[in-house]
C-alpha cells in the first residue's frame, strides 16, 4: 500500500475495547468490541428518545409529537400491509425500524472531528444477518403456528394449473429461502458501499490537497463538493434502507399471517 493512502475498509475493523481473546464461551470470543459499544449506544439513544417522548400530554410537545409520529408511521405501515392483525407486530417492527435507523444515522455522525470514530453496526453482515434471521424466524413460527402444514400452500400461488405446480413450487421455495439473505445483504451492502465511497473520496481530498495547489483545484475541491452531496445521499439511504427493511418484514409477515 502506497504511503499516506487512505485505506477505505479500515473503518470496518472490529477491535476489542476491553477484554481479550481469552474471554471466551464455548470457543466464541465475547470481548466487548467497538461494534457492541455502538449497538449499545444505539439502544441507549433509542431508549432516551422514546422514553423522553412517551408522555400522555393532551397537547403533545415537540418531542412527544416526534415519537408519536414515528410509532404512527410504523403502525400505518403494518396496517396497510397486514391489516388489523398486524397490530401485534408493532413492538417488533418498531424496534427493528428505529434500531436500524438510529444505527445508520449514528454511524454517519461526524464525531471524528473530536477524535471519536463512529462505527456503523449495520455495515456488518453479522449484525444485519441476525436481524434478518430474526424476521425470518418470526415469519416461520407465525406461519406454521397459524396454518400448520397448510403454510406450504404459500409456495403454490392461488390458481396455479396442476401442470405448472412442479415448476412453480421449487421456484417459490427458493425465492422464499433466499429472503433472509437478501434482507440482510441489502442493508449491509448499502451501508458499507456508502461508507467506502465516502472514505475513497476523502482519500482523494487528502492526497489532492497534499499534492499542491493545481491538483487541489483540479481534484481535491470537486471531490470535497461531491462528498457533501454524497453525505446528503447517505442520510437519505440510511432512512430508506431502514424503511425498506421494515417494509419487507411487513410484507413477509403478511404472507405468514394471511397466506395468499
Amino acid at each position, binding site marked *: 500500500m502506497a504511503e499516506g493512502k487512505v485505506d477505505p*475498509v479500515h473503518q470496518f475493523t472490529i477491535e476489542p475495547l476491553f477484554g481479550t481473546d481469552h474471554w471466551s464461551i464455548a470457543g466464541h470470543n465475547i470481548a466487548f468490541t467497538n461494534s457492541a459499544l455502538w449497538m449499545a449506544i444505539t439502544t441507549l439513544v433509542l431508549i432516551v428518545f422514546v422514553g423522553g417522548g412517551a408522555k400522555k400530554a393532551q397537547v403533545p410537545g415537540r418531542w412527544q409529537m416526534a415519537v408519536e409520529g414515528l410509532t404512527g408511521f410504523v403502525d400505518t*405501515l403494518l396496517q*396497510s*400491509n397486514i391489516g388489523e392483525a398486524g397490530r401485534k407486530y408493532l413492538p417488533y417492527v418498531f424496534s427493528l425500524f428505529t434500531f436500524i435507523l438510529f444505527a445508520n444515522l449514528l454511524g454517519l455522525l461526524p464525531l471524528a472531528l473530536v477524535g471519536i470514530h463512529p462505527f456503523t453496526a449495520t455495515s456488518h453482515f453479522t449484525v444485519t444477518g441476525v436481524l434478518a434471521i430474526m424476521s425470518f424466524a418470526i415469519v416461520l413460527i407465525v406461519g406454521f403456528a397459524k396454518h400448520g402444514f397448510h403454510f406450504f400452500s404459500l409456495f403454490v400461488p392461488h390458481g396455479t394449473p396442476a401442470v405448472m405446480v412442479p415448476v412453480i413450487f421449487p421456484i417459490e421455495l427458493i425465492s422464499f429461502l433466499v429472503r433472509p439473505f*437478501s434482507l440482510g*445483504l*441489502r442493508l449491509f*451492502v*448499502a451501508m*458499507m*458501499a456508502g461508507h467506502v465511497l465516502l472514505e475513497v473520496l476523502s482519500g482523494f481530498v487528502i492526497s489532492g490537497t497534499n499534492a499542491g495547489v493545481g491538483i487541489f483545484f483540479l481534484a481535491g475541491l470537486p471531490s470535497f463538493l461531491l462528498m457533501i452531496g454524497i453525505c446528503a445521499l447517505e442520510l437519505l439511504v440510511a432512512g*430508506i434502507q431502514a*424503511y*425498506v427493511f421494515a*417494509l*419487507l418484514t411487513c*410484507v413477509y409477515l403478511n404472507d405468514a399471517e394471511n397466506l395468499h
Partner: protein
Amino acid sequence: MDAQSAKLLGAGLAAIGAGLASLGVGNVFAKFLEGALRNPGAADGQQGRLFIGFAAAELLGLLSFVVAMILIFVA
C-alpha cells in the same frame, strides 16, 4: 495474466452490474412518477409498492458490489 490482476479486472467488470442496476432503479421511480402524475390521488397509497420495487432492483446492483468485494478481499 497473473491471478491478482485477473481478480482486479473481474472486480472492475462487476461494476457494470451496478450501472445496470441504476437503470433499473431509475426505471422504477420514473414509471412511478409517470403514473403518480396521471392519478395523484392514488399515488400516496402506492408508496410501499414503489419501495418494494426499488429494493428488488437495488438488491441486484448491490450483489455486483458484493461480487467485487469478494474478488478483491476474499478470493
